[in-house]
């Protein structure tokens, strides 16, 4: 196995960091959207459903490109909101987080929804009739009973985030040590004639992390299933 330089170690750490932050940031939003979709009826529900699920079917590079157009120097949000505030997103690790969050969001929402739909409706009604407010109900009934879906959604999104490439390379660029994640490093090595060994070594790291995530996912699933 070839020796990794600091750039490769940074890429591995950055991949983990981006995936973790994207998952944590998305969690409240994912929960909120899943709650709306499961328990509320409102106008435009279908539109929201389509919008949330769109990243699942759109090519990631389209998402990256749209984000770039939106958040970039000449983009609507970039020019009128971010620049006056002195925030720079494009080509920073934060842009990678945003790209990863958008791409992984539908996976998270789907899993949480499945979890919520499996909650017995009567338990929620019982909580309400016993005087719990909607917030109380969420906290003491819905969250504990849909924990499995929340954990599964987070794990899925985290795993998806580790592999995010298409959107990330467009908005976060490929800056070794700053925004270069494992897939970007592999891409760079894979297009270089003498990069095969390093590319394969990074593939191995990638596979190892994925296996660990899947095993953890399975372990939590069993524990939660056991607790039920």
């Amino acid at each position, binding site marked *: 196995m070839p020796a990794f330089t600091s750039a490769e170690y940074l890429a591995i750490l950055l991949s983990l960091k981006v995936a973790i932050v994207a998952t944590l940031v998305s969690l409240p939003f994912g929960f909120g959207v899943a709650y709306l979709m499961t328990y509320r009826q409102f106008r435009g529900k279908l539109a929201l459903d389509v919008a949330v699920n769109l990243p699942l079917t759109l090519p990631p590079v389209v998402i990256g490109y749209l984000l770039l157009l939106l958040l970039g*120097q000449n983009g609507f949000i970039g020019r009128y909101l971010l620049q006056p505030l002195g925030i720079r997103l494009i*080509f920073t690790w934060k842009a990678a987080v945003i790209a990863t969050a958008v791409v992984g969001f539908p996976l998270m929402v789907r899993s949480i929804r499945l979890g919520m739909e499996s909650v017995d409706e009567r338990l929620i009604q019982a909580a309400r009739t016993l005087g719990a407010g909607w917030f109380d109900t969420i906290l003491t009934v819905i969250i504990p009973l849909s924990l499995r879906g929340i954990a599964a959604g987070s794990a899925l999104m985290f795993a998806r985030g580790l592999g995010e490439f298409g959107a990330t390379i467009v908005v976060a660029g490929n*800056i*070794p040590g700053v925004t270069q994640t494992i897939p970007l490093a592999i891409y*760079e090595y894979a*297009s*270089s*004639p003498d990069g095969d060994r390093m590319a394969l070594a990074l593939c191995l790291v990638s596979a190892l992390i994925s296996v660990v995530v899947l095993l953890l996912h399975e372990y939590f699933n069993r524990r939660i299933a056991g607790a039920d």
Partner: protein
Amino acid sequence: MNRIASALVIAAACLLPIAATAGEIDLFAAASMKEVVNELSDNYAKKHSGIIFKKNYGASGTLAKQIENGAPADIFISANLEWMEYMKSKKLADDRSIATFAYNSLVFAGRPGVKAAGLSDVVRLDRIAIGSPKSVPAGEYAVEAFRKAGIDKQLEKKLVMTKDVRECLLYADRGEVDGAFVYKTDALQVARSARILFSVPQEYYSRVTYPMALTLVGSKKAEAAGFYRFLESADAKGILARHGFSVK
């Protein structure tokens, strides 16, 4: 039933690879050569009817690797000597045909509003795009210049690595980076808003040289050899010069 059968036959026929027609030439050329090679091949195709060009532009290292992995290529034009040497060492290029096609030079193109008069000013900028030195010659020349100028450490975390030299320029054009190290020809013919701020002094990097060669497959094709001779002709040199490339 018959109609379904005949439809299936037609569909299957469409899927068959188009029999390699006599006059097909596969060109693999450095991304910076795109416009000039397009013009050269269009000129040639006009005079030689029946010849169809298939062109693949990209980072020279990427192209070399694609050819190594079996991509169909008859002629390879690299933007540095290294990847041609690589092709030679892997016995993919026809040794006898290797010749110098053109020369170029490295410049720094900045987005509007950015000021830099030399390499020492670049360290004050925030984001700079270069081609990934692992496969893009323009990036290799740039890194060579950073080392000679002693600014490689200061620039380390500011470098956005792109997949080829044209993507570098695109980033500067869109204003997403402060500037990009590209070839003079790229900045002159393709840039929309980015402007050349300075030329990198020649003593800082090896001269940008484009070697070309017939691949082993190409050396056995008369059409490829014919186009290769055209690339060596005075007509071709004239077109190269018109696009801003040096020919001597």
